[in-house]
């Protein structure tokens, strides 16, 4: 209870040196706020990435994209050779392919009366919902007869609904894609923003045949998604597809692929490197700013020890042991840094929340970052308290009182 009395008293000494306490608090405040910010935004971004990867690939699937060459998992050098027939051949010849859907994309303006929007128009087949895993929240996808007869029907994303229909009911309404009128038969499930910053709700799905014949007038596709049976060996499937496509495209052994096959494991590699940045390097930068704050605090406290020599001498004269002096300076330093750190957690969380909202990352969970902030400010506090406490305790009372 004697020790508790001393700890209380020492924490109370913070208020007697307001300027120094203030500067020490700012140091840990900034460091911990930065740490809380990057850690909670990083965690939210990571959660979002995992969710998006799941949206893209589901349980077991792969993508074929027109054009060869890779960089960070994305295709380069857009080619012009991939066709629906290629994908159909792959679907027939590779038994592990359970289902597939080819896709052609076009960014163009869509209008309804005076309202206009620039949207991503995707041409897909009747298997679209099953393969891409994106459902209709209202209405339903078109069927195979609509694809065969190139019907002018469309499913639109939430952003397009807002842009063109406002508060009106879009179902059955008519919109123009380029010069061609289409009838709205469904609303797409909201998917938010993807890692490239694309608004996936600013998308429109039409039958691929309609898109090719009435809008783009080309028969090559942008890419395709293929679903594999659960027992499929990914590397073998990729090899089989590669052989079929190279043969169909008449590529000789010295020519590179003019298509890319994207697998879940490749995307996971990219994600792992993003994750490393989010969970290691960014917090490291924040930790360095906290370290700088700790060094500033330690320096200020050492200065304070010299300035308060008479106080230390007096305390020794009235019965303080060296341990008591050491404890006092420890508690003063640590309590100050911790107080700044707790304020930093709150501020960092508010910033993280604002940032995550702005970047459409969803909500941030503060607990992991808060725990890290508290632990790291205690560690920094103890480390910064070490030198001043040692110096204060080592001071001879006679010299200190002189």
């Amino acid at each position, binding site marked *: *209870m*004697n020790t508790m*009395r*001393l700890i209380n*008293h020492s924490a109370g000494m913070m208020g*007697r040196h307001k300027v120094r306490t203030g500067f020490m608090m700012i140091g840990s405040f900034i460091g911990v706020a930065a740490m809380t910010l990057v850690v909670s935004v990083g965690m939210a971004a990571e959660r979002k990435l995992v969710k998006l990867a799941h949206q893209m690939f589901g349980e077991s699937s792969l993508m074929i994209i027109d054009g060869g060459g890779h960089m960070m998992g994305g295709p380069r050098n857009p080619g012009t050779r991939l066709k629906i027939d290629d994908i159909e051949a792959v679907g027939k010849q590779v038994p592990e392919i359970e289902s597939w859907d080819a896709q052609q994309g076009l960014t163009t303006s869509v209008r309804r009366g005076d309202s206009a929007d620039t949207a991503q128009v995707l041409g897909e087949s009747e298997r679209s919902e099953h393969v891409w895993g994106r459902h209709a929240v209202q209405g339903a996808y078109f069927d195979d007869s609509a694809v065969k007869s190139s019907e002018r029907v469309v499913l639109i994303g939430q952003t397009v609904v807002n842009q063109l229909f406002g508060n009106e009911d879009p179902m059955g309404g008519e919109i123009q894609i380029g010069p061609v009128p289409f009838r709205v038969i469904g609303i797409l499930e909201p998917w938010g923003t993807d890692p490239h910053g694309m608004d996936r709700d600013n998308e429109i799905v039409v039958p691929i045949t309609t898109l090719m014949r009435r809008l783009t007038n080309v028969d090559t596709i942008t890419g395709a998604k293929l679903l594999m049976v659960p027992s499929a060996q990914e590397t073998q499937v990729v090899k089989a597809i590669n052989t079929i496509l190279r043969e169909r495209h008449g590529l000789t052994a010295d020519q590179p692929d003019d298509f890319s096959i994207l697998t879940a494991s490749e995307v996971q590699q990219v994600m792992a490197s993003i994750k490393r940045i989010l969970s290691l390097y960014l917090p490291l930068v924040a930790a360095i700013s906290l370290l700088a704050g700790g060094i500033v605090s330690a320096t200020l406290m050492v200065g304070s020890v010299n300035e308060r020599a*008479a*106080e230390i*001498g*007096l*305390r*020794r*004269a*009235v*019965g*303080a*042991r*060296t341990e*008591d002096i050491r404890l006092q300076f420890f508690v003063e330093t640590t309590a100050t840094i911790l107080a700044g750190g707790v304020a930093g957690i709150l501020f960092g969380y508010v910033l993280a929340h604002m940032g995550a909202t702005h970047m459409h990352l969803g909500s941030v969970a503060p607990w992991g970052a808060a725990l890290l902030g508290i632990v790291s400010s205690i560690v920094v506090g103890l480390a910064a308290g070490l030198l001043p406490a040692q110096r204060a305790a080592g001071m001879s*009372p*006679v010299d200190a*009182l002189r």
Partner: protein
Amino acid sequence: MIQLNGITKTYTRPGGEPLNALIDVSLHIDDGEFVAIVGTSGSGKSTLMNILGLLDVPSEGSYYLRGEDTAGLAAAAQAQWRNKRIGFVFQTFHLLPRTSALDNVELPLLYSDRVSIRGLGRKALESVGLGDRVAHRPSELSGGQQQRVAIARALVNEPDLLLADEPTGNLDRRSANEVMAIFQALNKSGRTIVLVTHDAEIASHCQRIARIERGRIVADQRVTEPKIALQEAL
């Protein structure tokens, strides 16, 4: 109460040559005495005070406090003795700034193992006539009042030995007189007091004067009729 035998204190100066602050000092002080140690600055009187107060250790010789050899005391035990048995009063008061009189007085209780400390600080302040100044900060008190707060701090753990190092050095005549009146009253109630001063007038309030010069005690006499400090202020 105090028994010093052949105390020598040697410091090493920055140049490396030794400096004898005290040379072969022997001194006996009985319970209840009020002793002045008089000397010019540099005579060794402060060193003597630090040794008496267990803040410093002699290079040679032995120091018995209440019959116990202080050489055998561990650092923690010395701290305990300073806390409970010795009260210090300094020339420059050494009050903590921005801290109320009451909190200053209660500082020694922080390092004591007493279970109940309620009211002790207030009682000590009342005993030096500052019962109405508990919440005042040192900057709001006169020099004399600050020294009385410091005396209350020295008394709060009820020690039976008071060591005062030039307690009136920074005070005007009137305040010095107040402080001496308090010391005389405390001595009357049984406390042993050792007071260091260079001021013969102040020393004349004590029962005994030991004169120290260049590290040695050169005279040690009883005062036949100590001056009485007027208690008008209290």
